[in-house]
């Protein structure tokens, strides 16, 4: 146990985490060059393209130092706010963390929130300045930021380059020397923390864990404490480039378990594995049910594809337990599913995977956050879609989820960022200068506000310099309205949105304007209206296109005209027919792209 070092990497997207990790794998001969596909840790295509690690993985390295051989377990963490709970479980499995900061860019918000989590878990931080090979590196300035942030000595900071391999040896040495070995009692009842799971087509669910106390052997009868389910440990082992089976894993080890589990829902990140025969007295603390925070309708473009879509989503869920779904129907879009996502990025990823891996064309409706509706009868309802909002007369009050948003930016952008956040109902909680020209701003904000065009706006007003992170902080009372959109007097359920009362008027107006641009002219006027209840708050009209009715229609014109109208009708089948109005697919997400 004293030769085990468990560590994770905390880094902002693009700060070179994966390339630097590759250098460590090379240096420890864990992988050969040939095996080293660009970035070994990011195994999904999508991850590699986006340059971020969506799901965490683990890999074991052997590193000889002095007379000893050390086992180094790198537990990779996802790099996006939507997956902050998974990050927290990875962190809880480690004793130390490499803090990797891009020497050309300095500390970003993402880094800070994960760093705080690591510090909260008493992890030993090994600061690394990456991309030192770049001409634009500004090591002194970024070192100042790091010292200011974690209070280390300048000499503790390792200068490295994932590209050239500079600093790799020093990092490995620091991992061995500075990070403490895991603690725990091998003789105690088994207590292992699940920090991730993946789905394998042949093996089912593979859960990754760290043994906190006790030992686990192949064939043991084990129990997952939070789900209460029991399994046999068909196979256990450690993770190198592939899975390496072992007969036994002991306290401090990081490994995997295969136990014939078919769906990811049974394996919850943060759950505790123990023995059936000799269970631990309590579960490892910090377990949370991951709750989706963004909900949207997902509909097949072709209504005949409904069952295929269901099969595709079920398959996705096998290795993405945080994706939830239930059948939903819409007058405008037919049958589909209400899906729950961790956040906006998660939603995009699911959409892209449906497209790439399953070739499914889908329409995603306007997303919304979950609301808690307290009725006058004293019930509490969780509302996930606009149609689920009860009649105003039965509602006592409504609560909406809030977040603590952390934004780090160059100080010259403070003004516009403040304006943006305040316009999004944000309240400034803290303003902290990291260095003379870098500031960290904290806001309490409704989550609903960042679902609508927040990232894009933040990026554009800060010219891309601001970084953003958030975590949820609970629910607060809100004034909620359901904004309906009517086309020629008929409400289009798929275009309804839940919004704060203060936003309803401007949102309604902008939606009508946007829809006017997107709905093509038809052979009669199309009235676009936004309404709250029975009150119309905005209106636009798409004028009719109509004159061809007045052309001649005699002998030879008849066939021609019939064929023309038949062709037009066929063409329109590709659009969604809402009442008598043809609505193109893109209109359903129009509200997200308002400017």
């Amino acid at each position, binding site marked *: 146990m004293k030769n085990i070092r468990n560590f994770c990497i905390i880094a902002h997207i693009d700060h070179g985490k994966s390339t630097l990790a590759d250098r460590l794998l090379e240096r420890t001969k864990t992988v050969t060059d040939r095996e080293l596909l660009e970035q070994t840790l990011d195994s999904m295509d999508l991850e590699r393209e986006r340059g971020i690690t969506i799901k965490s993985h683990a890999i074991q390295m052997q590193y000889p130092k002095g007379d000893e051989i050390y086992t180094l377990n790198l537990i990779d963490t996802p790099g996006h706010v939507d997956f902050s709970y998974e990050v927290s479980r990875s962190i809880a499995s480690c004793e130390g963390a490499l803090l990797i900061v891009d020497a050309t860019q300095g500390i970003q918000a993402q880094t800070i929130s994960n760093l705080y989590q690591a510090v909260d878990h008493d992890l030993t931080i090994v600061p690394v300045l990456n991309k030192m090979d770049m001409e634009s590196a500004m090591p002194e300035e970024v070192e100042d930021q790091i010292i200011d942030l974690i209070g280390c000595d300048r000499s503790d900071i390792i200068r490295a380059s994932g590209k050239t391999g500079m600093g790799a040896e020093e990092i490995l040495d620091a991992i061995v020397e500075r990070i403490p070995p895991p603690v725990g009692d091998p003789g105690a009842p088994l207590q292992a923390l699940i920090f991730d799971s993946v789905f394998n087509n042949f093996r089912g669910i593979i859960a990754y864990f760290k043994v906190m106390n006790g030992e686990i052997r192949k064939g043991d009868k084990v129990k997952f404490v939070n789900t209460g389910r029991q399994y046999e440990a068909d196979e256990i082992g450690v993770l190198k480039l592939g899975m390496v089976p072992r007969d036994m894993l002991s306290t401090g080890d990081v490994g995997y378990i295969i136990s014939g589990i078919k769906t990811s829902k049974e394996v919850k990140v943060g759950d505790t594995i123990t023995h059936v025969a000799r269970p631990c007295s309590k579960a490892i603390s910090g377990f949370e049910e991951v709750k989706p925070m963004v909900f949207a309708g997902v509909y097949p473009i072709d209504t005949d594809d409904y069952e295929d879509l269901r099969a595709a989503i079920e398959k996705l869920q096998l290795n993405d337990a945080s994706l939830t779904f239930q059948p939903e129907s819409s007058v405008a879009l037919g049958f589909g599913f209400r899906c729950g996502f961790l956040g906006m990025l998660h939603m995009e990823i699911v959409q892209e995977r449906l497209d790439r891996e399953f070739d499914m064309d889908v329409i995603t409706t306007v997303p919304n956050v979950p609301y808690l509706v307290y009725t006058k009868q004293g019930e509490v309802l969780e509302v996930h879609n606009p149609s689920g909002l009860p009649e105003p007369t039965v509602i006592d009050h409504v609560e909406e989820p809030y977040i603590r948003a952390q934004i780090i930016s160059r100080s010259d952008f403070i003004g516009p960022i403040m304006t943006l956040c305040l316009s999004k109902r944000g309240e400034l909680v803290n303003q902290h200068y990291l260095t003379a020209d870098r500031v960290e701003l904290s806001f309490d904000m409704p989550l609903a506000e960042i679902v609508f065009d927040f990232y894009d706006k933040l990026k554009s007003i800060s010219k891309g310099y601001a970084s953003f992170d958030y975590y949820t902080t609970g629910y607060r009372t809100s004034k909620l309205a359901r904004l309906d959109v009517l086309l020629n007097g008929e409400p289009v359920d798929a275009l309804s949105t839940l919004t704060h009362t203060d936003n309803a008027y401007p949102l309604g107006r902008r939606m009508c304007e946007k829809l006017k641009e997107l709905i093509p002219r*038809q*052979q*009669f006027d199309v009235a676009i209206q936004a309404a709250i209840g029975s009150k119309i708050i905005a209106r636009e009209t798409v*004028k*009719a*296109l*109509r*004159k*061809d*009715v*007045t*052309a*001649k*229609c*005699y*002998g*030879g014109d*008849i*066939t021609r*005209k*019939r064929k023309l*109208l*038949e062709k*037009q*009708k*066929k063409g*329109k089948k590709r659009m969604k027919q809402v009442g*008598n109005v043809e609505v193109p697919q893109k209109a359903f997400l129009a509200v997200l792209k308002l400017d």
Partner: protein
Amino acid sequence: MSGIYIHIPFCKTRCSYCDFFKSTKLLYREQYIEKLLEELRDRRHFFGSRKNNLQTIYFGGGTPSLFSEKSIDNILNTISKNFPVADNAEITLEVNPDDLSPEYLKALRKTGINRLSIGVQSFYDVDLQKMGRRHDAMQSRRSLEWVFQTGFENVGIDLIYGLPWSDGSTFLSNLDILSNYPVQHLSAYHLTIEPGTQFGKLKRQNRLSEPDDSESEKIFWALHDKAAEMGFEHYEISNFCRNGLYSRHNTAYWDNVPYLGAGPAAHSFDGTKRYWNKSDLNQYIKQGFSAGISCETLTLKDRFNEYLMLRLRTSKGMNVDEVKKNFESYWNRIEPDINKWIQKEFLEKSDGYIYGTRKGWFVIDAIIEDLFILE
């Protein structure tokens, strides 16, 4: 019941808005008539062996009035030799004002032509010049006087509205001029700018554009109202008549009555099949109609769609009992949609007929399209 359409694909000049098939080479007139007569003779059994009286004959174009009274007479003789023409048949000739003279009109009357359709288009010179018409307003007025002096009683004129440079009130004042004459029929078409025309070229160069649709609709209903005051019944989207003098020939198209069309590009319909001649005048003159004829059997679905399309363009609309009788299963499929349009007040049902309302008639194409059966 049946009708014959004779296509005369010749014009002296090409109008700026016209993409109708025709030739400006007048040289071939004589050869053309030969081939036309040949087609009429060859297709004498088109309407079947049963006694099927020919109710209407229609000379359209092009410009039929470029043909001499002798040529017209020749064609009519061939028709009556090969087809049983009803005693009271409607025999129409489309004419251009500048081709008319008292002598020519008198001669036409003797051939049996009993209805004239005059291509007036507008009573304003500025419109006529811009449209590239050969005649002027004076010629129109004078020819109308001659026509009635000659004794023609069943006379119609064509007008075009929606001219980009003009406005609704100018167009409507055409009707004031028209009210001086006992014209019984009016066809009013909205200008359509077709790609292959002079206007189409100007449109591409952004030098010409069609009027706003809502403006067009305003003119349409103003025309409807003004014509009604003058005693005109607006019996089809583009057609008006007084004293029950419908164009019997065109009405037959909308009633699915069989017709034979002779000449290049002409269409024929025998009740189940539609035939069309190739629109190639040179080939027609060299080899006759049979070298370029095509045919298509109309399925029940095609016939139903055409029925819907043509009936809903008329003010009377479609007869519910008739649809049920002829197309029962299709009727059952579209009835809910019909009711939807009735509820929205785009269609109306009364006395067993379904027809477009004031809200629906001008946009009836959208409704027809919606009701169409695709498979």
